[in-house]
């Protein structure tokens, strides 16, 4: 028993501003992550956040509207603030972990692609995400990030739904 090799697991958790993803993160900490000093499992937790891309408005737009640089800058600043607050919230949930390394990564772009690329880049063994729990129609219009990731990511995907209270 003593000479069992140490198993390293890289767990990627995709977070966004929603409560569901924070619930998924806490579920993951309670149920999946091993925070023990002894034992043969060493976990690394990677928090991945996708920031929506900076929208570019061209002057050839039919309406003739062109956002001034100030507006675009303030939108960008807001998006960075949202990213920082989400990462802070997620890190706060993880603050009690003593033997698990916590890493945070922020990517810019469409959530689906950002998450898939990040998992590959980071070499994740498993991706954990929350799900908004949309019905069929909402899914058709809003799209589902968790659905897309579950189909396209190379590693196993764990989808945690927040139970309706």
């Amino acid at each position: 028993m003593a000479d069992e090799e140490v198993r390293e697991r890289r767990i990627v958790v995709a977070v966004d501003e929603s409560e569901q993803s924070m619930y998924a993160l806490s579920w993951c900490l309670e149920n999946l992550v091993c925070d023990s000093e002894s034992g043969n499992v060493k976990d690394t937790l990677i928090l991945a956040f996708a920031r929506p891309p900076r929208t570019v408005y061209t002057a050839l737009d039919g309406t003739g509207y062109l956002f001034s640089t100030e507006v675009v800058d303030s939108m960008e600043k807001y998006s960075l603030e949202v990213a920082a607050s989400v990462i802070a919230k997620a890190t706060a949930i993880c603050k009690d972990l003593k033997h698990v390394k916590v890493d945070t990564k922020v990517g810019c772009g469409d959530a689906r692609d950002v998450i898939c690329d990040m998992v590959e880049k980071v070499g994740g063994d498993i991706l954990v995400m929350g799900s908004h729990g949309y019905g069929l129609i909402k899914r058709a219009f809003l799209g589902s990030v968790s659905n897309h990731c579950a189909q396209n990511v190379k590693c196993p995907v764990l989808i945690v739904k927040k139970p309706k209270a």
Partner: protein
Amino acid sequence: MGEKKKIMLAIDESDVSHYALEWALSFLKPTISSPLLLFHAQPLPSFSYVYAGYGTAPTELIQSVQEHQTKITEALLERAKEICAREGVIAETLTELGDPKDVICAAAEKFGVDLLVLGSRGLSTLQRTFLGSVSNYCVHHAKCPVLVVKKPA
């Protein structure tokens, strides 16, 4: 992490199910509480092709098809149980008759599992629309978290 969790693994005869079992045993070892529930959904036998010739399916045919299916199920579950035993995990086997999607979700609820593990055949979007996807259905309808394992290319 608190106490160990009750985990149910839904398997069928596909390769990816076998891979999901092996992967789950290695990755989830610290979390699995004994016993690990191995669930196999037996599809309802379809006799539509027989009606053309006979009018109604003869009882012996129905019986022999059902026996054959039961044998396949038992062999599959026994093999899975052995794989678990090899890794030092006690497994309990279960089977239900019916459409896999509904039956898996119902069983997960009945046994109050904390995590459901499924393999995914990795169908394309078009194939999914026509053939349906059990893992997709379970992700949306199961009350507990679902872990979908794909076989790496």
